[in-house]
């Protein structure tokens, strides 16, 4: 059973149901967060790539449906970030881990959104689950 998102997230970054569960949430992955998982026999993002920002903001992502609707390549969010890869997880997976998916357009990126919820303490599995489920959109 999925736990409810925290009250902080529900208040400040409420989930937007118009973002479909199947929508891809894109996350930029720096080269030093790409690891080789011998158990899975593949490169994947480290769990550290799916932690909240340290400035107090929830984890930033980019909504693929927004990019598609604007006829932009998904890789557009890598502009200016040479060497970075791009990974996708679904909104539904994030929600199943007690996260909210909150569109948060910013001047430089209309597809910007945040994924809010505890990724550390009791639910440290969140970041690991996202990392293992991530699919490469732009490979490292």
């Amino acid at each position: 059973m999925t736990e409810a998102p925290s009250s902080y997230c529900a208040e400040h970054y409420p989930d937007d149901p118009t973002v479909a569960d199947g929508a891809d949430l894109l996350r930029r992955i720096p080269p030093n967060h790409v690891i080789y998982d011998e158990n899975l026999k593949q490169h994947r993002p480290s769990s550290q790539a799916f932690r909240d920002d340290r400035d107090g903001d929830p984890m930033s992502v980019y909504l693929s449906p927004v990019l598609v609707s604007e006829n932009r390549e998904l890789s557009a969010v890598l502009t200016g970030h040479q060497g970075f890869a791009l990974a996708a997880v679904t909104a539904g997976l994030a929600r199943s881990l007690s996260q909210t998916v909150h569109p948060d357009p910013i001047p430089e990126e209309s597809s910007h959104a945040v994924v809010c919820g505890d990724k550390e303490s009791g639910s440290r599995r969140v970041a690991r689950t996202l990392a293992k489920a991530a699919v490469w959109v732009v490979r490292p």
Partner: protein
Amino acid sequence: MSEVLEKEENSIANPREWYTRALSPWGDSHSMITGCGKKEMYVFAAYRVRRPPTSFETYCARGARKVRTERAVCFRTIYRRRVATPISSKATAPTGLGYVPFETVKTFIELLELPHGWNSYSAKQIRKENVNAAVDLLRRIMGPGTPPPTIVPTVAGGVQLEWHTKGINLEIAIESASEINFFAEDVRKNEVSEEIDESALAPWIDRISER
């Protein structure tokens, strides 16, 4: 930086890790490290880091001497301590022998060069005390048969050590000397330990180590 190098000096060298490297650059746009390696009965370690666009910074351990070439200032750090008895690369050893792979030390040093916001979001610079804590921890838990960890920076300025092998997922996140989080999982046995401490690490390290 020198502290890290000096710790390497004190580590037990494994011939498997000894190598020589010509003074050719490698690394990313932020750093270039040249001429590091271990050779024969002596341990060599030298780091030359380029800070864009043109300046250079040299990191040397105690006892280092710098060498000039015809092209530029070059250097090598020579640890004069003799390794008395080379350890067989196939030797079986328990954990906790103080073995820290040379490549691991090199990665730590590269992480210390990361600028603020290195993850394109708001990640902090990696703090030296966290690297030192990681080196100390590895010295306590690793043996020659232990595979080197994958090392990733954390957004809080720490480092995470990871092993994903032999059906084991082991992650150690060091956010400060007093905040070290362990996670261990055996995917074959569906066994998870999330709140273990260092004292419980040994069995997990043994399971990922060669015997």
